C-alpha cells in the first residue's frame, strides 16, 4: 500500500519546512482575529491560490480539495440556520435565518475553508522526512523524537494492510456467541492490531539501536541539510503581501454589507 503520489517539485517544496510550518500555524491563529467577512473571503481565496503551485495535477488537487466544500457547508449552515440575530429574513420551525446569523455563518465557513487550504498546501509540499530533518536542524528537536515519528509514519501503511486482512479474517469467522456490540467489535479489531504494532515497534527500535542510533549523546551528521535561502524570503514576502492585499481590499472595498460579525 502506497501513501505517496508522484508530483512535480515546485518552489514551494524548497521552502524551509520549519518556516512553512511556522507560517501555516501563524495563519491559523491570525484567522481567528479577523472579524470582517470581506477580508475573510479574500483571505480564503488567497489561501487557495498556493494550491495551484503544489506541483500536483490540478484534477488531483481538486479531488483533495473536495472535502472543503463539505467543511464550508457544514460549518456555515449550522450558524446560518440556528444562530441568533435581530433582522429576521426567514423562519420555518426551528430554522431561523437572520441577517446577523447569515454573515456570521458565512464568515465561519470561510474561516474553515482558509484553515483547510493552508493545511493542505503545507501537506502537499512537505515530505515528513524533510519536516523532521528541518525541525532537528532549525529548532534542535531531539533526534530520538524525530526518528520515532518517522518510524511510526512508516508503519501506517502496514497497519492499514493489517486492518484489511483482519477484516477479511473476521468476516470468515463470523460473529460467535458473546461478541456483540460496539465494545466487542472494537476489542476484536484493537487487540490483534495493537499486539502486532507493539511487537513491530519493539523490533524497529532494536533495529535502530543496532544501526547505532544513540539518542541524545554524540553529534550526528545529516543526509539532508536545511538552511535558509532566497526562496524562504520570497515565500514569507508573498504570503505577507497576499494577506496585506486581502486586508486592504476587504476593508476599503467591501462587497458585503456586514463588516464586523462580532
Amino acid at each position, binding site marked *: 500500500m502506497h501513501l505517496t503520489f508522484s508530483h512535480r517539485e515546485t518552489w514551494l517544496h524548497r521552502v524551509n519546512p520549519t518556516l512553512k510550518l511556522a507560517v501555516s500555524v501563524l495563519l491559523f491563529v491570525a484567522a481567528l482575529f479577523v472579524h470582517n467577512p470581506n477580508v475573510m473571503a479574500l483571505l480564503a481565496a488567497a489561501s487557495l491560490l498556493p494550491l495551484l503551485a503544489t506541483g500536483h495535477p490540478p484534477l488531483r488537487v481538486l479531488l483533495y480539495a473536495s472535502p472543503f466544500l463539505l467543511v464550508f457547508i457544514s460549518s456555515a449552515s449550522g450558524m446560518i440556520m440556528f444562530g441568533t440575530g435581530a433582522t429576521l429574513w426567514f423562519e420555518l420551525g426551528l430554522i431561523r435565518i437572520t441577517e446577523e446569523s447569515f454573515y456570521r455563518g458565512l464568515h465561519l465557513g470561510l474561516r474553515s475553508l482558509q484553515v483547510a487550504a493552508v493545511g493542505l498546501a503545507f501537506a502537499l509540499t512537505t515530505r515528513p522526512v524533510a519536516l523532521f530533518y528541518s525541525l532537528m536542524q532549525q529548532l534542535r528537536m531531539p533526534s530520538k523524537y524525530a526518528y520515532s515519528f518517522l518510524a511510526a509514519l512508516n508503519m501506517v501503511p502496514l497497519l492499514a494492510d*493489517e486492518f484489511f486482512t483482519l477484516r477479511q479474517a473476521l468476516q*470468515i*469467522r*463470523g460473529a460467535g456467541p458473546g461478541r456483540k456490540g460496539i465494545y466487542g467489535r472494537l476489542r476484536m479489531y484493537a487487540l490483534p492490531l495493537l499486539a502486532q504494532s507493539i511487537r513491530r515497534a519493539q523490533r*524497529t527500535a*532494536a533495529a535502530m539501536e543496532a*544501526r547505532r542510533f544513540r539518542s541524545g549523546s554524540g553529534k*550526528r551528521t545529516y543526509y539532508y541539510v536545511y538552511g535558509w535561502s532566497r526562496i524562504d524570503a520570497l515565500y514569507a514576502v508573498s504570503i505577507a503581501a497576499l494577506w496585506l492585499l486581502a486586508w486592504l481590499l476587504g476593508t476599503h472595498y467591501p462587497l458585503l454589507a456586514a463588516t464586523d460579525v462580532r
Partner: protein
Amino acid sequence: MKAADIILKGCIRSHTPTNGGEIGAASTPLAALAPAIGSGRLPSMTNASGTGTERPRHADEAVPAAKRPTPPVQHAGPAARVENLRLRYPGEDTPLLFKGLSLTIERGQKVLLLGPSGCGKSTLLQVLGGLVPAAIRIPMKADCCLVPARPGYVFQDPDSQFCMPYADEEIAFALENAGIAREEMPARISRCLEAVGLCLADPHFPVAGMSQGMKQRLAIAAMIAMEPDALLLDEPTALLDEEGTRQVWSSLRSVWGGRTVIIVEHKIAGIAEDMDRVIVFGPDGSIQADGSPRLVFREHRELLREYGIWYPGFWEDYDRNAAIRPAATAPSSGVRSAELLLELDGLEGWRGGRPKVRTGPLAVNAGDWIAVTGVNGAGKSTLLLAIMKLIKTKGSLYIPGIPVQSLKKPGDMAKHAALSFQNPEFQLVTDSVLDELAYSLPRSLREPERSSRARTLMENYALDGLGGRHPYQLSMGQKRRLSVATAMVGGQRLLLLDEPTFGLDASGTVRMMEQLERLRSGGCAILMITHDPELVRRFATRQWLVDGGLVAERSGGTACI
C-alpha cells in the same frame, strides 16, 4: 562489558574499512574520496572517514593498501566470548534460558547457530553482539562477556527493520549515526547498494515498493554501511520465498569477506556449506554439538531430527521413516472415485478496479491436495481470497448442491470452505485455546458436548494441554494448527491455506503436513499455496500454476516446479 570494549577498541576501530571483500576494495577510504570532496576541504577530512574520530588522519597518510593495518582475519583471538552466561526472560516463573553457557567465537569465523524453536539462540545472538543488555534489557549475568566493537545486525522481519521510507535515506540513517560527512554519503550509499547486488537506477527508491528479498538485501547494505567487524543475522530468510532466500545468501557471501559472521537460521539450505562451524543447541539452551558443518550433519543427524531442525538430507530421511505415507507417493492414489467439491470457470478476482487473477475451467475433487505455485505477486493469495468471495469476483464458482445465490458473500462461502491466513494471529479472536475452538462450534450445541467437542479437536490437532493458554502465547506451529482447527470446526470439506509452513521449523512443517494429510485422506480437499518444491513433490496430488494472473492446471505430474 566495559573491559571487553577496551580490549577490542584499539585493534578493531582502526582497520575495519579494509577487511570486506568488495566493500573493502571500494572503501579504500581517503584516497578514493579525496577528489569527490574537493581539495578545499582537506582539513575537515580528518574525521570524515567514519572509521572513528579518535584517531585523526591526514589525507596524505591515506596511501598504499599495504601500509594499512592488517585485516582482522589475520589476527588470532576471539571476536565474541561469553563465559558462564545465565539469562532469563523477565517474568516471575520463567525458567533460566541459559545456565552457565560458555562460548568463544574466533575472529573471522563463520558460525551457524541451530536449535529447536524457543531454545534462546536469537537471544544469544543479541548477547554476542552486545544488543542485550545494552539496548534490550533482559536480566543476565556472565563472568566474562566480550562483544565485537562494531557489530552489524540483520533481523528476521523485512517490514520492521527500517525507519525511513526510501532506500538511500535508510542507509544514510546508519551513516548519520556514525557521523559520516554529508558529502561522502551519496558515494557510500551507492557503493553499499552495489555490494549487495541491489541495482537501483536511483538509490532514492521507496522501500514499500521492494520485494521482501530486496528489503533484506537493503538491510544488509545498511549493515555494511556501518563497516562492521562482525555480521550477526537473526533468521534473515525465515520470511522469504526461495528466490529471496537465494538473493540474501548471495548478497551476504559477497560482502562478508574476512569478517566474523554469526547466523541463526533454520532454513539452512544454500548457506550451511559455506560456514566454518555449526553449533547445535538443545531445548535447554546447552550446546549439544559443535564442529564443522560436515561433521555435525554427519555425526548428529539423530539430534537434529529430534530437535526438528532442517539439515541436508532431511526429506530423504523422512521418506524412509515416515509414519504416514503421503498420497503423492503412495501407490494407491487416484483409485478413489472422484467426488466434486468445487468447480471454477473463468473466476476472476478483482483488486484495485482491475482483474488480478483469472482461472481456467478447474475442478476440485474430494481427496485432492492441490499445490498452488507461482512467483511472488503472481496472484496466488488473491485466488484464495476470490474463492472465499472476500474480494470482488466475476465468473462462475460452483459447489454441488448449493444454489449460486447463496455463495455470494464470504459468510456463505465460509460454510463450505475454510481459509487459513499466513499470519494465524488475525484469525484468533478469544483469550484461550479452548474458547477459540468453542467459538466456531454451532450455536445449537449445548454444554457438555460443546467442551468435549473442543477437547477432541485439541487432541486431533496436537494441542492437548494447551487449552488454558492465550493463543498468542503459542509457538508459530501451534498457532497455525489452531487456526486450521478453528477454520475446519464447521465441518467444511474444502481447506484453503496460504503458505501453511511459512516460518516453521522441520518438526512444525512435518506435523502440519501430516495433519493436512489426515484431513485429505478423510475426504477433504486441500488448496495450499507454497514455495517449497519438496512439499509439492511429497504431499500434493495436483499442482496449479499461477503465472501472470492466470491459473492453470500444471499437467505432467508434480515432480518439479
